[in-house]
């Protein structure tokens, strides 16, 4: 922390309050002060109000109270334009790029040089490439962003912000989708920017990173700003306890797995994507009752397609999937679920829930065959209510009643609704995709414990996650996926270090067929 002399706050947010249309009180008199040229971390549970605060700073949401002071002047942002004009740039957790447009077009969008009414592509490219050099991206300028890997997309987002003359750069959970290596690279670049006098605000759930990169940390809890502290003066443990409000440990009680019969058997599975490329390429493995198999990998290496084929959301192009020994090729999703499969999707808002419907209605959506919900052949409000309330209690879903629309819950609680439904299906095979993405420590821990409980009750669990910490905590064995294939299989997580794992995730290293073949567990127990 070299530059302690320049502590003039470049930005101050004073007494900011924000209430969303659905009544959620997301920010409550929040104050934040950021110094020029510092990397300022913003941490907090889900729904703590971090993104909201930043969306307000970026002019995407209007504060109901409070003021923003930028370099001493009070400013009001009616839209992102205003914020951008005042030198604020934001990189969103979910990238905001137009896939069909080239890098240049995306970067210059809204600020294109114009000649005779037409866009002046040449000048545009020149301007962009100046900034792109910083990130060694000059050569990609004409490629459509849709084709780029996640890591690069993020760079494009940063370039986009800088092109617009951002002095203050907001990054919302930038590392959630990055490998350790990519994260390192990102941090180097952030340091570069810092040294050039840029100010960075950095949102993350990963406290270790926060410790590593930031100068100061602001901690939010339930819409309130708890404190802002110097990074040196505080430990991860302290941060998390102040985030959650209570002091508790993350480590889980977990006894060794006792794998039994194979419940999920995948053989030579292949998915052909657009432009005829094999997005999943001849993949074989199996998951046994009583074990948690983790699949690691950078997003977009085929995990998603793999899961979609296993869960029946995508048709199988080649190969086979057997659940409980039955080939699922011909089965409908309904039949799969009846076979005993349940699935926590990575995108809860899109796949896991009908957010505008009530919690209760969401909970029964997969249980409509359950006669206990009916009274003389008609769905009974009362019986649904009882059942829903039961689950709301069991899974500690924070809400005023089971009639509240799901859209009014925070990410974490939305996820709990999904989990509550999926874990009460009497399923034998549980497929959990990013089960705690963007979910606070408390909720995450709860879900982890549930997964382990089910494992011990002899379920087979297939876990796909980009969060290595989670992967290590839960998995009994690990498969690494790279470019549609498995690049490694580890019968035991302790065998491999995070950096090592990172190498396999990036395809720097790849195991031999036979090593990977062990993932099928044939020698141990044949599939029924």
């Amino acid at each position, binding site marked *: 922390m070299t530059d302690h002399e320049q502590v003039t706050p470049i930005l101050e947010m004073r007494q900011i309050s924000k209430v969303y249309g659905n009544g959620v009180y997301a920010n409550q008199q929040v104050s934040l002060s950021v110094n020029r040229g510092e990397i300022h971390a913003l941490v907090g549970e889900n729904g703590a109000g971090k993104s909201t605060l930043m969306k307000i700073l*970026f002019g*995407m949401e209007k504060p109901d109270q409070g003021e923003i002071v930028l370099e001493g002047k009070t400013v009001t942002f009616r*839209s*992102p*334009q205003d914020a*951008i004009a005042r030198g604020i740039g*934001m990189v*969103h957790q979910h*990238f*905001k*790029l*137009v*896939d*069909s*447009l080239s890098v240049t*077009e*995306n970067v210059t*969008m*809204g*600020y*294109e040089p*114009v000649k005779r*009414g*037409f*866009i002046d592509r040449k000048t545009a490219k020149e301007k962009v490439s100046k900034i792109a050099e910083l990130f060694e991206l000059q050569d990609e300028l004409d490629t459509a962003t849709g084709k780029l890997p996640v890591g690069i997309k993020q760079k494009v987002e940063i370039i*986009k912000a800088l092109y*617009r003359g951002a002095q203050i750069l907001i990054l919302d959970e930038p590392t959630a989708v990055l490998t350790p290596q990519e994260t390192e690279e990102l941090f180097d670049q952030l340091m570069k920017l810092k040294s050039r006098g840029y100010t960075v605000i950095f949102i993350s759930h990963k406290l270790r990173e926060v410790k590593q990169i930031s100068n100061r940390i602001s901690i939010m809890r339930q819409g309130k700003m708890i404190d802002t502290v110097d990074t040196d003066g505080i430990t991860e443990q302290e941060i998390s306890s102040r985030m959650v409000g209570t002091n508790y440990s993350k480590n889980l009680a977990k006894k060794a797995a006792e794998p039994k019969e194979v419940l999920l058997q995948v053989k030579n599975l292949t998915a*052909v994507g*657009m432009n*005829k490329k094999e997005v999943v390429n001849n993949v074989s493995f199996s998951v046994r009752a009583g074990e948690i198999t983790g699949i690691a990998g950078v997003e977009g290496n085929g995990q998603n397609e793999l899961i979609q084929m296993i869960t029946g959301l995508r*048709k199988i192009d080649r190969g086979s999937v057997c659940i409980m020994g039955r080939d699922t090729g011909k089965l409908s999703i309904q039949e799969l679920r009846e076979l005993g499969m349940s699935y926590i999707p990575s995108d809860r808002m899109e796949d896991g829930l009908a957010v505008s419907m009530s919690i209760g209605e969401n909970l029964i959506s997969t249980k409509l065959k359950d006669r206990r919900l009916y009274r003389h052949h008609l769905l009974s409000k009362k019986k649904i209510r009882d059942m829903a309330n039961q689950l709301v209690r069991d899974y500690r879903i924070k809400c005023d009643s089971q009639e509240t629309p799901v859209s009014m819950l925070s990410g974490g609680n939305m996820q709990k609704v999904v989990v509550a439904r999926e874990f009460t299906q009497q399923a034998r095979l549980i497929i959990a995709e990013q089960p705690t993405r963007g979910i606070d420590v408390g909720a995450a821990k709860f879900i982890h414990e549930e997964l382990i409980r089910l494992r011990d009750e002899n379920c087979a669990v297939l876990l796909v996650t980009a969060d290595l910490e989670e992967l290590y905590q839960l998995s009994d064995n690990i498969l690494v996926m790279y470019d549609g294939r498995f690049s490694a299989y580890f019968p035991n997580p302790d065998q491999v270090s995070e950096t090592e794992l990172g190498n396999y995730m990036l395809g720097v290293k790849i195991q031999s067929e036979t090593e990977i073949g062990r993932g099928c567990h044939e020698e141990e127990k044949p599939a029924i």
Partner: protein
Amino acid sequence: MGQILEIIFTADFLHSIIRLSTPILFATMAALISERAGVINIGIEGTMLFASLMGVVGSAFTGNVWLGVLCAVVSGIAFSGLLSFFHLKLETDIVLTGIALNLMSSGLTIFILYILTGDKGVSTQLASKAVPNINIPLIQDIPVLGSILSGHSVLTYLAFFLVIALAIFLKKTKLGTYIRAVGENSDSVETAGISVNMVRLKALLISGAISGLGGAFMSMAYVNMFTKDMVAGRGFIALAAEAMGRGVPGLSMLSALFFGMADALSNNLQLFNMPSELTRLMPYAFTIVALGIYAAREQRKSKA
């Protein structure tokens, strides 16, 4: 049957295809521009109808064709301005608003006509002007081609010119690029510092202006009068044409021509006393079939 073929390969027939396609082409381009901005404008039908009345009224009161056309365009813009206001400002559902506007238009036009002339059917009371047909100097002398391509209404040539103009506009201009971007991923545009609503508004207004031209063509060129509900579903066919053209101006133009062809065919089949009801449903039936085939193809693509 032989006779039918004879007719189909006459210059007259091909000439009529172009004539019949023109209003659909206008509507299709109107649908295209708004669709690319991510708003499906089913109000085109009503917008055209309203514009076609206003064109007649305008030209009748000013006594000048072009002022009439202008009047149609302006009212087209006004109508889609209304749509934009409700959809973008008051956040109504675009489809429902479109339907509402169509219903409104078919009543409002009769209402206005009645107030102005005491008639509810035709605008013959109003001495409106017709947009002139023009012969293109060189082309008209080419033997067959001349009689096919020449001698159309000014607006017809404008329609085909519009196709090229739109293609360039979408590809090369700022607004065009924004429109494509908004259609594909609106919130990236918003966060890039462009007001999505502004882009959509502009797209819708352009769409309205084009519909206005289409309306003007209906009542000042296709025929020289306004009659109630005279757009007769062309605004709807356009939606199909746009879809089948995948939002690409050139392809959309082709599907518009295809429907014009179906229309021309149905007019001629009647002459060999084929049941009029059946011939009249042909263009619509073609549309459905084409739509199905198109969708099937798209799906196979996405599956692969």
